[in-house]
């Protein structure tokens, strides 16, 4: 090898590296990636009555009654392949709350109880069998299920619970745990977890917390693994238990992880609710939505969440069954209300009139969605439809004219006497659009163009947008196609992300002292009725002020192999595990 070439190689490496590093912006905290996609399970389940999942089975294959085909012995065995839309960020349940991860934990790991806002029944005992509270409400005695073993054969005991709680409470444990930490403390004082005997745990809290068991439903981790391998809490994130293996108590155990390809799960024969029907579950990683569609169509996967846009083509395929599930999820235009252009609520109302939301729903989810008539989703306590903003471009122009936007040359709107906007400025702004909401952005943009408002669409991935705007006092963005999901029934999710705290804290830079006072009252009460009334008061204000213009409530579509039977699994999209009883999934041979 010549000297010249050696130099070339060196040059090459150094230049590559420096080029890359030079591009690395210092202020971005990529850690937000794992934190932002979250499922919280808390609150109470009442509203769910309205929320019964619509399982629309659209297929040519006739549904046979389960009993006829479903003899116990016929159901045993088989491989179930589930398409995962994202790579797995990690396998330690206290460090991860990305929703693909939660689907996996739903198969392998278990919490003490399942409660949560959208679970259809009352608090459900899992690894805790029963519990009682002292009269002052401060001391909880939790009796654990006996004879449960971890996947590696060690028995599950009270020590595991104490270890698990302390690990989450320890500030040294990774960022993912920080997400759960507030649920394990009150007013900054951590709850104390003590093992009374092998199967009893006592939890003492500084203040009475009636919903304690709803809050701490995080899957458990085995103490013995971390002790035997000498893993400190600080090292947990980079330990194999997070990067390649998982040990739980659930119906399936993880036996193999092919990085970027699949996690292979096998039935846990010792599972306490009984051996699962399936032999194997394969969670295949297919991050590209189009590739996922192809995988579904060719039968490479048995079960996958798909984009609603694909429904028409999937309907044509007799080998696919669709489950269309109502979700606690909405998309919206979020305005930066600090920008003079959007400071006046009439401008925001005009946008609601100007956008044809049915077209948005058609383009984005093929019509599988609903036009919102409330600033929160329909699962929030106290929901009742509010007067609708109808699609009416003339009304929109009228409102804008009131603010001072008048028709200028070649049909564009121009500021005449708008507060904070120099006269003669055309109505032009940047519409930040994450790639997967491009369909929404496209329709909004076209609708606004009709009334002379120019929206420049900027397709930008979501982490980038967050990094630029999150928690900043003066956020650079104008309008973003945003929205949220799984924010729950008790309003807490909405308050901290959108409407409360301070203008800096709010995604839309929105702050209203009146609303703030109401939020405080919502948090203070445990009575659902009272919460509902207060939330409704807030909703009426927000529906008028519209710091965020809700465009649609959406559904989730799962495509399934018709041979897969999920009837007994208590399928629920608002539950983190998706299947409440995964051991009852079975496949026709």
């Amino acid at each position, binding site marked *: 090898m010549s000297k010249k*070439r050696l130099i070339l*190689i060196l040059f090459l*490496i150094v230049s*590559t*590296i420096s080029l*890359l*590093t*030079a591009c*690395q912006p*210092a*202020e971005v*905290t*990529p*850690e*937000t*990636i794992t*934190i*932002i*996609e979250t499922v919280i399970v808390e609150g109470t389940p009442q509203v769910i009555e309205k929320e019964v999942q619509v399982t629309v089975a659209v297929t040519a294959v006739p549904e046979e009654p389960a009993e006829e085909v479903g003899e116990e012995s016929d159901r045993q065995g088989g491989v179930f392949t589930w398409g995962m839309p994202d*790579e797995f*960020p*990690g396998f330690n349940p206290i*460090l991860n709350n990305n*929703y693909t991860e939660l689907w996996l934990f739903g198969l392998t790991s278990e919490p003490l109880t399942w409660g949560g806002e959208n679970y259809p029944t009352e608090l459900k005992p899992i690894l805790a069998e029963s519990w009682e509270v002292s009269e002052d409400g401060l001391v909880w005695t939790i009796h654990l299920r006996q004879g449960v073993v971890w996947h590696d054969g060690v028995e599950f005991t009270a020590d595991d619970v104490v270890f698990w709680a302390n690990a989450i409470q320890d500030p040294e444990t*990774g960022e993912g745990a920080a*997400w759960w930490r507030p649920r394990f403390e009150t007013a900054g004082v951590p709850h104390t977890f003590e093992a009374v005997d092998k199967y009893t745990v006592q939890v003492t809290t500084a203040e009475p917390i009636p919903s304690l068991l709803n809050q701490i439903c995080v899957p458990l981790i085995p103490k013995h693994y971390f002790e035997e391998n000498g893993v400190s809490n600080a090292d947990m994130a*980079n330990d194999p238990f*997070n*990067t390649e293996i998982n040990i739980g108590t659930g119906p399936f155990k993880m036996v193999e992880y092919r*990085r*970027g*390809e699949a996690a292979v799960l096998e039935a846990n024969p010792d599972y306490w609710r009984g051996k699962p029907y399936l032999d*194997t579950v*394969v969670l*295949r*990683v*297919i991050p*590209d*939505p189009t*590739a996922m569609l*192809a*995988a579904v*169509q*060719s039968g*490479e996967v048995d079960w996958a969440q798909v984009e*609603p846009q694909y429904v028409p083509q999937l309907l044509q395929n007799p080998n696919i069954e669709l489950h269309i599930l109502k979700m606690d999820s909405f998309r919206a235009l979020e305005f930066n209300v600090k920008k003079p252009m959007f400071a006046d609520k009439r401008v925001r109302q005009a946008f609601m009139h100007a956008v044809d939301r049915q077209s948005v729903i058609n383009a984005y*989810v093929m019509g599988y969605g609903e036009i919102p008539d409330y600033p929160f989703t329909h699962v929030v306590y106290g929901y009742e439809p509010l007067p609708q903003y109808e699609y009416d471009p003339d009304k929109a122009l009228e409102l804008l004219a009131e603010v001072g936007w008048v028709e200028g040359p070649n049909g564009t709107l121009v500021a005449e006497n708008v507060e904070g906007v120099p006269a003669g400025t055309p109505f032009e702004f940047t519409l930040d659009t994450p790639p*997967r*909401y491009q369909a929404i952005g496209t329709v909004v943009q076209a609708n606004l163009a009709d009334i002379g408002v120019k929206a420049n669409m900027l397709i930008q991935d979501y*982490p*980038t947008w967050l*990094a630029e705007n999150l*928690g900043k006092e003066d956020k650079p963005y104008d309008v973003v196609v*945003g929205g*949220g*999901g799984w924010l729950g029934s008790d309003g807490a*999710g909405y308050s901290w*992300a*959108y409407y409360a705290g301070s203008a800096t*804290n709010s995604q839309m830079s929105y702050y209203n002292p009146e609303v703030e006072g109401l939020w405080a009252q919502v948090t203070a009460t445990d009575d659902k009725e009272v919460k509902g009334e207060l939330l409704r008061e807030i909703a009426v204000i927000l529906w008028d002020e519209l710091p965020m213009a809700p465009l649609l409530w959406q559904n989730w579509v799962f495509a399934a192999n018709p041979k897969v039977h999920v009837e007994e699994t208590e399928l629920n999209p608002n539950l983190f595990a998706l299947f409440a009883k995964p051991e009852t999934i079975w496949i026709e041979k």
Partner: protein
Amino acid sequence: MYADPQKRVLTAEEAELIREKLGLNQPVYVQYFKWLATSLQGNLGYSYKTKAPVLDEILARLPNTLLLAGSAIFLTLLLGIPIGAISALRRYSLVDYFFTILSFIGISMPGFWLAFILITVFSTRLGWLPPVGMRSYGQSLGSIQEIIDVGKHLVMPMLAMAVVEIAYWARYQRSSLLEVLGQDYIRTARAKGLKERIVVWKHAFRNSLIPMITLVGLTLPDLVNGSYIIETVFGWPGLGRMGVQSILIRDYPVVMGVTMLSALLVVVGNLLADFLYIFVDPRIQQN
């Protein structure tokens, strides 16, 4: 609409803590030299997303990418060189025109569009080949079935990657052989009365291969480029797909690692080409 990102506002302290942990509050050049120092010791850092060592992430996917790129190169050599040679020997014949136009089309088609065509024909219409991933699960896998299964998954991405290269190689081989055939020593060989077969295969063809080795060096970056798109379209669990994904979510340690490795692959490929030169061309050996 996959993940419904729940927007969480980090407090300033939380954000600062994370930044400190990741070393992002230091000046860029300090970050760079720190990274350089640790990576020279074989530690490429940890993925922001999976928290696993970047090296592990890369090593797990490297064999898949090598399998795909390797079989694409194999196919390129298998088809590109003979097609070029035939075109040169039958210059201006119907065969030559046919292959010339075909290779021009091959060079001009975007790889991902070709991938669409392949998927539509072989997967959607005919149902012969699986469109996604590297292997099926769910069959009882004997070792032979497993190889066949991976092979089936390999066919379309390999083709989509190789077609452009085959076209380039055929063009180069054609002009290289034509040039050699015009050389004096070929004329001499013919004048000596050697059989045409020997002249062509022993003298002309072998010599025409020497400049082709340079093409190896040019093909490698092309293949690496292609892998980013083709692996994404076919959901192939390799480095290219990981690279694209990590750019989209700004997972810097992984982006750096993938770039390093891509560059390294290209350099190693060039070195191999150099050694091949020495091996093939006796003139270099003597020096």
